[in-house]
């Protein structure tokens, strides 16, 4: 039963952090090239435009949900399971979500990269 809770919390972490990453990426795409914007209008405008972006706010909220899910997961399961499982599944989930929701061109090269990194993170964090 505890294993079920743990995996439920891990899935919650993965889901929330993927949602958060996609929202943050979309926010920054709306804000545009930060370097060019800063040269044009200054750092204050960059910060204001980023913080004022609704996607950014929701993305940060999703990240907060992911963080609290992590705390829940850690209260139920071992860190040696939770950390690598959540981290590596997040990489795979992000690749899928970026393709679907951000319409990024996730070619074979990027799939391989995401899988390699996910496997490596699982080994390192485990």
């Amino acid at each position, binding site marked *: 039963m505890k294993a079920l809770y743990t995996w439920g919390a891990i899935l919650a972490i993965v889901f929330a952090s993927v949602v958060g*990453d*996609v929202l943050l990426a979309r926010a920054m795409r709306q804000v545009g*090239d930060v370097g060019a914007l800063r040269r044009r209008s200054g750092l204050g405008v960059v910060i204001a435009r980023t913080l004022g972006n609704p996607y950014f706010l929701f993305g940060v909220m999703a*990240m907060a949900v992911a*963080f609290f899910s992590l705390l829940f997961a850690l209260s139920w399961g071992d860190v040696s399971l939770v950390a690598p499982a959540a981290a590596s599944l997040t990489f795979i989930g992000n690749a899928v979500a*970026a393709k679907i929701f951000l319409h990024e061109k996730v*070619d074979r*090269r990027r799939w391989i990269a995401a899988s390699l990194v996910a496997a*490596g993170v699982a*080994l390192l964090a485990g």
Partner: protein
Amino acid sequence: MLSHGMKQTGSISVHHLQGVIFAVLNPWVAIGILLLLAFFATYMTALSWADLTYVLPATSLGYVLLALVARFVLHEHVSPMRWLGIALITGGVGFVAGGPSLTEHSHAKGDEPLQEARAIADAAKSPLLAKDARNGAPTGVQS
């Protein structure tokens, strides 16, 4: 990745508080928060320039850096499985960074070349910044 950064900086400060430094509670926490902010700012900046599927594997180099710091600064033992993990991550990042996909940003808006070149020049600086941010407090490694 934000929670990862939080975990990294968080455990760094906690580790320092308990094991290494006894008196300075607030400075380490402040440094942790500053590093977290620096990580987040550089991460958002990178996201404004490149795809999520490009930036995320690249940020996973942080894990590699962490393990290398553990090995060569803290002289911790790094098991063969972890070396394999380091190799896999490095290979994965090489895969996404090398070759033609380097300039292939799906949201390229057709900026004039000069602006593009400037952006790349700036982008070259930001990984350095991120590395510095992580190197800044290298001692407390979670593992």
